[in-house]
């Protein structure tokens, strides 16, 4: 690893990673000095192709940050420009330079604004310090990606992750995925908000929520930031309940703000709080999950299940997902792209369910056309809640692309 050449250790700082196993990242060290301008040394595995581009970008980023005199050494492992900017900015700020300035990457087109009850079957967690996972995450078509600032990021790297996630929201195209950020527990989470909200994430996950006040605090700060940065897209909230207290207050938390669009549960922490072992069947969390679903429905929002941690066990994942759906959840988290398709199939209604619901929906439409108050199918009378459920199921199946094209037009 690089070390400062002169003994100005209080000033010199570094950021990022390099090494044989590192991909799509870089290591930067910045050593401030009083004069002499910027002196940049570069080592890069892509030097023949992008060496000049990296040098130019390094200079531009430092100038944008207001860094005039420094020894800068860059060890690049094929990082993309949005990562290079983030690591340079982190190193400069750690060196006590560039405070108050940002070096933002080129902006990609934002996806359509997210709606409150959109399809959220799968949300793919991406550790906030691992840029190599970001660039292609959208290609695997989860309903959402989560840029994580919390548990997957070491304490010493929170500042780096925040800047990288900010640049990622701005510079990476995630296709039609909803772009979520999991912030840290408050009060650290408020610093996260200040950095990432200007780049308009679609949803913020708040960890370890136990009281509605925590949600309100986040909501207020987001509203302030939206005003300050003239954002008029919705930014939804998904509180994560991870304790017995959180579960007890589930409804109040769900109802804490009109921006709360879903509740979810963190089972590792929850089972630890209960002092029980987390099992493959999940019996120990059945009450909490049932309670959460009920609270979410009572508040008119979605319920989302925890993640399934064993990426090798696809059958276990499918069973877990099917049980989740049966309990009333709308989706769950995932930690590897290979889990996405399995989750989508677990949360898909069966063909038999779809056909039955379609029949009910046509009977309902027919009754409406004929001005009948009572919907009947064959000799059976269909109750209004059944009609409602069928309408929902057909709408969902349509959103999942499960209806044949003919029927999808209806």
């Amino acid at each position: 690893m690089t070390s400062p050449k002169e003994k100005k250790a209080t000033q010199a700082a570094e950021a990022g990673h390099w090494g044989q196993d590192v991909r799509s990242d870089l290591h930067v060290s910045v050593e401030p000095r009083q004069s002499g301008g910027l002196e940049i040394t570069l080592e890069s595995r892509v030097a023949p192709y992008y060496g000049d581009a990296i040098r130019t970008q390094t200079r531009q980023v430092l100038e944008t940050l207001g860094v005039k005199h420094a020894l800068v050494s860059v060890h690049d492992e094929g990082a993309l420009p949005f990562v290079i900017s983030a690591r340079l900015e982190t190193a400069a700020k750690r060196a006590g330079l560039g405070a108050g300035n940002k070096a933002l990457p080129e902006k990609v087109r934002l996806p359509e604004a997210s709606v409150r009850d959109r399809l959220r079957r799968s949300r793919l967690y991406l550790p906030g310090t691992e840029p190599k996972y970001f660039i292609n995450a959208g290609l695997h078509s989860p309903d959402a990606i989560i840029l994580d600032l919390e548990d997957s990021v070491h304490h010493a790297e929170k500042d780096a992750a925040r800047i990288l996630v900010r640049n990622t929201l701005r510079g990476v195209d995630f296709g039609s995925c909803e772009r979520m950020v999991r912030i840290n527990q408050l009060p650290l989470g408020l610093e996260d908000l200040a950095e990432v909200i200007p780049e308009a994430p679609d949803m913020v996950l708040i960890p370890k929520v136990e009281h509605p006040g925590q949600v309100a605090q986040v909501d207020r700060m987001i509203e302030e930031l939206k005003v300050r940065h003239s954002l008029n897209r919705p930014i939804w909230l998904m509180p994560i309940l991870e304790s017995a207290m959180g579960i007890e207050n589930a409804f109040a938390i769900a109802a804490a703000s009109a921006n709360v669009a879903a509740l979810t549960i963190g089972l590792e922490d929850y089972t630890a709080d209960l002092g029980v072992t987390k099992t493959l069947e999940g019996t120990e969390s059945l009450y909490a999950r049932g309670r959460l679903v009920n609270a979410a429905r009572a508040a008119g929002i979605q319920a989302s299940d925890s993640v399934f941690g064993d990426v090798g066990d696809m059958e276990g994942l499918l069973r877990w997902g099917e049980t989740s759906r049966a309990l009333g959840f709308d989706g769950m988290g995932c930690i590897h792209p290979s889990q996405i398709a399995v989750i989508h199939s677990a949360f898909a209604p069966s063909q038999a369910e779809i056909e039955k619901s379609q029949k009910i929906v046509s009977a309902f439409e027919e009754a409406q056309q004929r001005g009948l108050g009572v919907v009947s199918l064959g000799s059976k009378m269909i109750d209004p809640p059944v009609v409602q459920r069928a309408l929902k199921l057909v709408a969902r199946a349509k959103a999942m692309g499960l209806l044949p094209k003919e029927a999808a037009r209806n």
Partner: protein
Amino acid sequence: MPERIELAHNAVGRRVPAMVNGKPQIPYLGAGKYQPRGRKAAPPVRSNKDYPESGDKRVPDLQTALQKCGLRDGMVISNHHHLRDGDRVALMALEAAAKLGVKDLMWFPSASFPSQKSAIDLMESGTIHHIEGSMNGPLGDYCTQGKMRGLGVLRSHGGRWQAIQDGEVHIDIAIIAAPTADAFGNADGSHGKSACGSLGFALADSLYADSAIVVTDNLVPFPCIPWQIQGNNVDYVVEVDSIGDPAKIVSGTTQITRSPDRLRIAELVAQFLRESGIMRNGFSFQAGAGGIALAFVDYLRRMMKEDGVKARFVRGGSTRYLVEMLQEGLTDYILDGQTFDLDAVQSIAGDPRHVPTSPFTSYNYHGKGSFASMVDAVVLGATEVDVNFNGNVVTHSDGRLLHGIGGWQNCLSAGCTILAVPSFRDRIPVIVDEVTTLTGPGELIDVVVTERGIAINPRRQDLLDAVKGSNLPIRPIQDIKAEIERICGGKPARPKLGDRPVAIVKWVDGTVLDTVWQVG
């Protein structure tokens, strides 16, 4: 070292040397344009009288065998690469030649491997003049840096057969490593502690060389059954303790990629075959042993089961995955060019439906047809593909030699040629304006499958029509290129290549397709 090399432009505008290692060259004329007449080369006539009636052709060691074959300065000696990075025989032969004090040999392996890097010392000491055959790793760098006395000549597997058969390369002595052999020289690769499966790459050497030496670590009493190399073509047999390191000859198991992006590419390739209707009863395909290719086979296998489709034959590079398809009845035969893992070696040794082939049957362009063009679809890799669908497999984007052509060029004659590649690696675009080194002309490359979408060569309107209305992400190749240039922050700088040729890339017909230039 050649002083001044005269260059000519070939039919695709690449500058190629007119003379290579003292032999005049024909610049590439276009696919299918060069059809030489005349007769094939042939080895000298021999008489039974000169060989022991007992059939026992053993001599004590390789040095003796080389002496008896009349080894002298400037000769061409050849090896096959079925033992891959585990091979010991090639270096054994070259070192024996060094001990005999001969100079300026041309080494003509069917491919070289990193474990043979001490061939560099033999070039430095003058034993080897130059290498014609794939070079990568340290040997590749040695060549690319312009340190070799002659020019490297890169040929496909089929092109190597063609060059030998057409008399472009005359092998003086072939040294054939054999996992099993008898004292008469019959040899086979499917049994023995160093079993490697097929020995097809050594077949031309055994047929056309002036002399052939079989080297084995598993001598069996006559007859060696089955035999892929016929003892009637062999002069001497040498028994040694070990012909190679079994752990490096075959991998215990070949692994499917775990990269989600590469899995996505593999799945898209399989879906393409299904949606285009290529995957149908009685079809055939070929895929290599790379991570994406293996994953593709696994996805295709599932789809074939779902749709109740069976293949008539699949072409190896064989692995466990093809063997399982054979055992599940999803294909009638495996026609195998090389055998990559333990399961495949066991299968070829025990299952008559798993058949060893050679570059003659599969790849040779100057023949009465070859299997390659009869395969419905082939899935290949590449280091670069350009917007005209030209492919590069031999050099890195910076011009350094990366790997050999293998069967890649030969496979381009399949019904549907698919390159399965990531759109960029690290920050280096794979889809580019123009390939650094042309290895395969774009007119023969039909489909490029990346994680960001599938590009179909506009020449293949039939394929474009076949997948119209499907859910596949079909996109113009320019479109994918523009996207990755946006992601990577602009076009990459062009590599700074030198102006001195260090190697040439031959096309399957022996004409010169492109030049590898000195770097660094």
